[in-house]
């Protein structure tokens, strides 16, 4: 109860702050003023807060990843021996992998633009109307549905006798109809849409959480000053949403590069590997072709891409906010 009371007091404190200074940095890279000199007690307390999370992640995720890196240096013989970077060299030889890389980049761009953009739009635009809640629910609900159901439904949408082509025919647009799952690169675009349909809900919720950190007074003051909706959004709301935008973009980036289920169920990466992404290539090499060395090498490359892009984004934005 005390916590709640204090919490309220705090939020009124927040509202007196100028909005931009609240934003802080994304990746904790910004220098932090030391409130107290270091001491053993403080270190102990910090360790108690940090260790459970760090230990879980390190043991369950980072150590196995280390094993993957090690595996990528071994050969794919029945008795694997050390092969140096030979598995990585094989990646360069395979033309299907460059298409896979291109598709991965398409997924990255599509996932950054669509769920993030739609999510922001829905969160901001449904905030004021009464019926906005219903509209919002329509967009958020697909997130609750399991991946296999999403794939079945979007199979219905995109198949040659599916819903999209039926709708186009009813609108007299037969010539726009396509075999969405069979034509490259339409199959990748179609599956990005399926992913957008499901993933926008995450962005909506995160942006709603972000909107709550914005003191209403700052927006209302601008409204009284006569700033119109777009100006209020652009100059007051958007800057204050910056911290949560890092989260949404960071998560979308990671998810885009790891997308697997939707593609696997809808096209298995086909036809002729044209809709494959690196996550699928890795799976294919490791488990279908029984080449764990090459598969591990793809996993390492994919991870480096995700890590580097996340780092560049989060670090760059951190600087901008300073």
């Amino acid at each position: 109860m005390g916590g709640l009371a204090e919490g309220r007091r705090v939020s009124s404190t927040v509202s007196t702050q100028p909005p931009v200074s609240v934003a802080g940095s994304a990746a904790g890279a910004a220098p932090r003023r030391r409130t107290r000199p270091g001491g053993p007690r403080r270190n102990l307390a910090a360790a108690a807060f940090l260790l459970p999370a760090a230990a879980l992640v390190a043991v369950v995720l980072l150590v196995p990843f280390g094993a993957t890196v090690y595996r990528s240096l071994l050969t794919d013989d029945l008795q694997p021996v050390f092969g140096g970077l030979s598995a990585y060299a094989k990646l360069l030889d395979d033309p299907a992998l460059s298409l896979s890389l291109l598709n991965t980049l398409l997924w990255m761009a599509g996932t950054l633009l669509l769920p993030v953009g739609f999510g922001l739009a829905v969160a901001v635009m449904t905030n004021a109307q009464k019926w906005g809640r219903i509209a919002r629910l329509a967009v958020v609900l697909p997130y609750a549905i399991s991946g296999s159901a999403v794939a079945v439904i979007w199979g219905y949408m995109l198949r040659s006798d599916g819903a999209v082509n039926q709708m186009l025919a009813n609108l007299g647009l037969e010539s726009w109809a396509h075999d969405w799952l069979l034509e490259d690169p339409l199959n990748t675009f179609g599956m990005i849409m399926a992913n957008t349909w499901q993933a926008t809900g995450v962005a909506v919720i995160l942006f709603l959480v972000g909107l709550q950190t914005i003191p209403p007074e700052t927006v209302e003051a601008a409204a009284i000053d006569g700033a119109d909706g777009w100006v209020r959004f652009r100059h007051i709301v958007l800057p204050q949403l910056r911290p949560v935008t890092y989260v949404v973009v960071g998560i979308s980036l990671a998810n885009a590069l790891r997308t697997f289920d939707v593609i696997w169920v809808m096209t298995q990466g086909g036809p002729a590997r044209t809709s494959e992404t690196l996550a699928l290539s890795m799976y294919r090499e490791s488990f279908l072709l029984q080449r764990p060395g090459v598969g591990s090498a793809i996993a390492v490359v994919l991870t480096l891409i995700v890590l580097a892009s996340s780092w560049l984004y989060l670090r760059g934005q951190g600087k901008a906010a300073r």
Partner: protein
Amino acid sequence: MKGAVMKKGKQPRSVGRVARDVTVIGMALLWLVPTWLLVVNALTSVETYTGSPRWVPDGFGFFDNLVAAWDAGDFGQATANSLGYAFVCAAAAVLVAAGAAFAVAVMPVRRPALWFWLIYTGTLLPLQVFVRPLFSASAELDLYDSWTGLAIVYTAICVPFAFFVIRNYLATVPREITEAALLDGASWWRVFYSVHLPLAKPAMAAAFIFQFVWVWNELLFGISLTFSPTARPIMAALADLSSGYSRVPPPVVLAAALAVSVPTVALFFAFQRLFVSSMRTNI
């Protein structure tokens, strides 16, 4: 003060507002098309299903479909298992992540960026690479095919994302609040418990929902790390229906998928009001 702003009627109905309303309604309708297909085809009876998507329900086969699904898959025990996984792993991950987020965002730890990346990297790794190492490790530790083993894996996978969300939320809390509490003589535990935890409620709730939904819908580890009915999650039971050898027609799979989504949909409804911003002004 608020009342003055709440009088929305004073604003003229501008072109911008109409455009906004049309956009919102259009998007909601577009989003509802696949949802509609899901519901209608789950209602379609196996006898009238023709192998192509239906737009209008023909008869009401939903309960027959559910019965067929229940007969074909082992849903009872799997539902109990998954409720356990989702509640426990999501809650544990959110709590553990909140602690770490507090340390990195609020406490003056050394090298916060290093800690941030150490934990955050966990969310960037492609999950398929973990299957083989985690399988071997859990077999070695006698955690293979056990509820506990899978729960540990789920919790660990949930931590990084929850950490990221909560950390960035806590980063928006002005440092002056922490300093004031510390000057009052509060310990770090006290600051965490009575200042930041209540403040981070919406972020923690969002993280909890995401992780609950993720665990509930997770299939890959569920089928790779468990075999027995006592440990298998709900998505494994659902996958039993739609495996490559399935004799169960698509309407039955969809009906089961719809029924299986009830807990996650209910969760969204339960938390809906949590995400309503105090901002009441139109944009």
